[in-house]
């Protein structure tokens, strides 16, 4: 069993956004790993390991499309416990989702992976597209927004529960397949793999890297590919026409009476 997990770096979502030349200015941004990708890696780890004996039953490969020199986030995920990494050297900010999906589909095929686990979206663009596009490109079954995953080892399938408007839907996707992860997948008992006892309780949330994990991460293998190695033309069919900061808020006003307030809400704010 080989699990491929997509991971992305994003500008720190807690920092305030800067604008320059009609675009978001990330030149001085602090880059951090995308939170949903942490859920994806945690899901893959829980699927792969026997939580008691720490033995692994699957290999976990993390894959990122980013400039090769800026792959610090891959080290972070290797420190969490992934076995090795693949970096596709490209400026991801200049690619559209389809191009990224093609690159990941290429890595999936090249690796001969059995399962692709993605975060449901990346926090910077909130696109929520890549997992679905890869499934489409490879013609694989997909279960998106997973809140719970059970590995049915006999049936060679993943049983995925996903929160939908009117309840929880359960889908069984035969391997090879694609899963995208939602927040609830990192609750203490959301992932079951048939090896770790079903009543095992994980700490909530993605695990922190251990000290040993951190020192070992640097020694783990990270393969570097170019888009051309995957026969993909990296580009974008989408062009940005402009990005503008939201207008600054106008100063507040102090009104004299309720009547005046109602009038202003009706005529100036136009909310009544």
């Amino acid at each position, binding site marked *: 069993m080989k699990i491929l997990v997509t991971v992305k770096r994003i500008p720190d979502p807690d920092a305030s956004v800067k604008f320059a030349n009609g675009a978001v200015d990330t030149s001085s941004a602090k880059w951090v790993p995308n939170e949903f990708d942490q859920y994806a890696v945690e899901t893959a780890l829980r699927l792969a390991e026997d939580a008691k004996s720490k033995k692994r039953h699957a290999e976990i490969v993390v894959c990122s499309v980013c400039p090769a020199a800026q792959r610090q986030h891959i080290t972070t995920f290797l420190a969490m416990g992934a076995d090795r990494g693949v970096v596709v050297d490209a400026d991801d900010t200049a690619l559209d989702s389809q191009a990224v999906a093609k690159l990941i589909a290429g890595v999936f095929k090249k690796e001969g992976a059995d399962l692709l686990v993605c975060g449901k979206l990346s926090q910077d663009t909130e696109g929520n597209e890549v997992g679905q596009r890869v499934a489409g490109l490879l013609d694989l079954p997909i279960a998106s927004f997973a809140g719970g995953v059970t590995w049915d080892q006999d049936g060679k399938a993943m049983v995925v529960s996903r929160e939908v408007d009117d309840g929880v839907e359960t889908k069984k996707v035969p391997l090879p397949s694609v899963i995208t992860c939602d927040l609830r997948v990192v609750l203490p008992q959301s992932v079951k793999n048939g090896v770790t006892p079903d009543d095992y309780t994980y700490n909530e949330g993605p695990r922190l890297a251990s000290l040993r994990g*951190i020192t070992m991460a640097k020694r783990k293998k990270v393969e570097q590919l170019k888009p051309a190695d995957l026969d993909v033309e990296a580009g974008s069919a989408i062009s940005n026409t402009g990005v503008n900061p939201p207008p600054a808020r106008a100063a507040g006003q102090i009104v004299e009476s309720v009547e005046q307030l109602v009038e202003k809400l009706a005529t100036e704010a136009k909310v009544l």
Partner: protein
Amino acid sequence: MSRPEVFAALRRDLAFLLDEVLDVGALRSTGAFSQFDADDFGTLVDAAIEAAAKLFAPCAEVLDAEEPAMRPDGSVCVPDELATALNAYIEGGYLGAALPEDVGGMGLPYVIAQAMYAAFFAANAPAAAYPMLTAAAANVLRAFGTDAQKATFLRPMVEGRYFGTMVLSEPEAGSSLADLRTRAIPQADGTYHIVGNKMWISGGEHDLSENIVHLVLARIEGAPAGIKGISMFLVPKRRVNPDGTLGPLNGVTLTGLNHKMGYRGTINTALAFGADAPCVGTLVGTEHRGMATMFHMMNEARTGVGLGATMMGYAGYRVSLEYARERVQGRHPDRRGADEPAVPILEHADVRRMLLTQKVYVEGGLGLGLYCAKLIDEHATATDAETKEALDDLLAVLTPIAKAWPSEFGPRANDLAIQVLGGAGYTRDWPLERYYRDNRLNPIHEGTNGIQGLDLLGRKVTAHQGRAFRRLLAAIRASIGRFESVEALQELTTALDGAVGLVAETTMKLGAAAMGGNVRLFLANATEYLHMLGHVVIAWMWLEQAGTAAARMDQASEDDRAFLEGKLHAARFFTRYELPRIERQAALLQRLDDTALTMPAGAF
């Protein structure tokens, strides 16, 4: 609450102290830590800070609110959150951070492990106490245990499956361990039966680990009275079979829990050994040398206590600082009009005084704790006897100070933090009263501060005709020499030089009195002496920090400049507001003041 303001600041402070002031990277040049890369230390300390913020801080309130309780069957319950936090800590590999790799540890320098503890102490000291005790006990076994003891107990301790305790105190023997009565009765198979009552034992009973390894001080039957008749024994809660599986209970009975003012997350027990069933122990180290063996653990434990006191003060400082930036109240004295805008309380000079006082106590204390830890690493890696002796000396005089000074002034910082918040500080809506209650333990355990004063003046300073003391003064003078030509530091170097002279003179006069034979008078103001020398040592730590800051100022970014300017300003504050206290203390000590000593008991 995870209090991000505490951990963001701590990250910066630890990086400054470790990389810039102490240059811990240089420890790698000894070859001892060559398995680590240059940037590993910083990365690992940052990981510990994140773990402390995410795993330890959130359950600190629960551990305080839900004190451990004893069930009718004699077992105890502690909040589930404690087990969860400790398991994550163990999985993270923190327990074995400084223990060598051959016993399952990480082999990190002690100073790095202490920096990690600093983060866990700031987050939740009562939870951190369990692994801290365990690591210290494992360290004693590593140094003094027999092969059999090591084979059975060491690895499970490093792996966090067995926890450790230190069992010294008895109901009738606290400060005066010479009077302890617990007996060890030799058995034909070379083991001992332990019989006696122990008091105040932290982590003495719980189900957080599979087993508990008690390191117990007791007197072998027929041994001499006093300190020279005490030996150390390894006493497991459950016996361990030769194949490593757990055997039956070993006759250690929980007789009660102590209900404490603070530090409630660390269960505190009264234990009876061998009362209901035979309690089997094995000797650790040499017969009758138990105190020396225990001190191996205690020197580290003592600097650890000081660091803990510092970090509770640190957390309080950061929380009160954040509050002072937000809380708007009152106006500047020259702008009192009702139409003038009210200002954040940080604007008021008196609030700044309270914040600066906290800052100099806690950041000075942190500097001292890490400096001592680095000396321990240098000692461990030193190859020649002369260097080892010099480091032994420095550590000997500094240990009572590193324990007692922060545990005196850390709680004072917490007291000021409460004051900064006003009424809010006095409520449980804020963590400051909890920090204060937790911190109030530190002057009491691991040898009361009063005992530390006696140890410092009565033993450490006077030993070998004051050799260790002279080495300390030489080290301080070396720093003064390094910085006295820097203009921005001249006020500090001049004041510190004067202070060192005053302390030297005072110590000489006291020494002369001691030779005169009046020991009671000589030691009557030992606590004042510790505070005096402690303030000089902290002023030294501030000179080191200020000196580093001054040297970095030119290349610093804007953010960094504010940080470094803060260090320089704080150093000046310590020099002007705090250091002059020693003049009063020196005067009292030099004239061998007997006012306290001679107060008739009936006149109180």
